[in-house]
């Protein structure tokens, strides 16, 4: 079972266990990580589960779809090269230890 770490804007790190087949967003909401809203529930339709993938992990998550790409343009916080929607990051075993940085806002 992979575990992932969400780093809050104040630097606080929150390490949590993921279940098989979950997305990073689902893991976050199940553990009540503040800073991940996920208003659409994981359908890539709202851009409120925005994260910045930590530099060391950029190559690992699955490729970005067109929907996600378009939504990130409208995300509330600044879009950066490492921006992703956490609902589109499925936590396969090779993402064990993944570090995701939270933006200062989702709305």
């Amino acid at each position: 079972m992979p575990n992932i770490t969400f780093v809050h804007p104040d630097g606080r790190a929150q390490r949590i266990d993921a279940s098989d087949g979950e997305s990073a967003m689902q893991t976050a909401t199940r553990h009540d990580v503040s800073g991940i809203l996920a208003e659409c529930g994981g359908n890539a339709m709202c851009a409120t589960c925005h994260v910045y993938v930590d530099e060391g992990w950029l190559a690992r998550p699955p490729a970005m779809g067109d929907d996600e790409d378009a939504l990130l343009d409208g995300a509330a916080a600044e879009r950066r090269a490492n921006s992703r929607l956490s609902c589109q990051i499925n936590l396969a075993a090779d993402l064990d230890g993944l570090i995701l940085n939270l933006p200062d806002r989702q709305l």
Partner: protein
Amino acid sequence: MSATSRIDSATPERSAPAGVPHLDVDPFSTEFFEDPHRIHDLLREAGPVVWLEKWAVYGVARYAEVHGVLNDPLTFCSSRGVGLSDFAKEKPWRPQSIILEADPPAHTRTRAVLAQVLSPTAMKGVREHFTAMATAKVDELLARGSFDAVADLAEAYPLSVFPDAMGLKQEGRENLLPYASLVFNAFGPPNQLRQKAIERSAPHQAYVAAQCQRENLTPGGFGACIHARADAGDITAEEAPLLVRSLLSAGLDTTVNGIGAAVYCLARFPDQLARLRSDPTLARNAFEEAIRFESPVQTFFRTTTREVELAGHRIGEGEKVLMFLGAANRDPRRWENPDRYDVTRRTSGHVGFGSGIHMCVGQLLARVEGEVMLAAIARKVASIEITGPVKRRYNNTLRGLESLPITISPA
């Protein structure tokens, strides 16, 4: 008393499939509209899949099965209609929707167009104006003190922002709510509500058909943005008016009932209004929770494209499956204290806007409208008191009120 009767049944007597619990409840009756929760509980507890004798359809009312059906659109299709009527057997009452009543791959292309027109970026463009209009509306209502929260707030506010955002002309806007009411009644069975709505539909249909045309839509509005996508080659010139029609069908009455639900919640649960007032940033979640709690869109159907096993039951091809969104949103298997309206609840995952590829394409617009209205209430209103009889409005799909007399006091 029931708005429907046995002779309305769409299909002649069919026996319940073996092993599937069968119920004789009618989810399209006034009895149901008045109090769906008791019957939702009955449906959920009967089993993961039930058979509804009255209309000879399968039903799912638990969260897991509703979510599962919504997220398997190739097995549970929309192109045969998302109401009781099966388009493989019956002619649709209006030209079929090219987004709501479509499956991939056709749906993927039209969906992408509306998703872009109603994107988070597009919402940034309307937010400031919507906020100013909500603030002005609450000021006006505070000056009046007592009013009907349905007509004067839940309807008046969306009517003051949505038609302009679409780019509609002033004339004829009184057709918008009757048209939407018709569309949502038409998803239901051939009961009185549906038949009467269709009988009276000609002027509303004519109005909407005309407003979908490019020359009737103001530049810069959502309608014009859709037509611009035809220029870009993403859709054809014939498809553009049909996509405008989708927004006119589903973009107004839904937010009316969503905002109405939220105000009704805040009026009934003063502790939650107090919580919201203490932290107006909860406004957006308070709206979302009202969508979960009341589920303004109660039901949709799907049609099976093949024989499928659902929660251990075999369902044949060409069967209608009725999804009880409102029941899923209060399923104790998924929600803690489901019957409690809690503005701090983590609402992510509710199916009030659906789920999967057909999830409400206007959900961001609905949230902006709901949030800015509830934020204005949170800042300016100290109390909401119900001062007269609360009357329910009957619609085959939409849950909402006909009348909610309230008195509000300033903060």
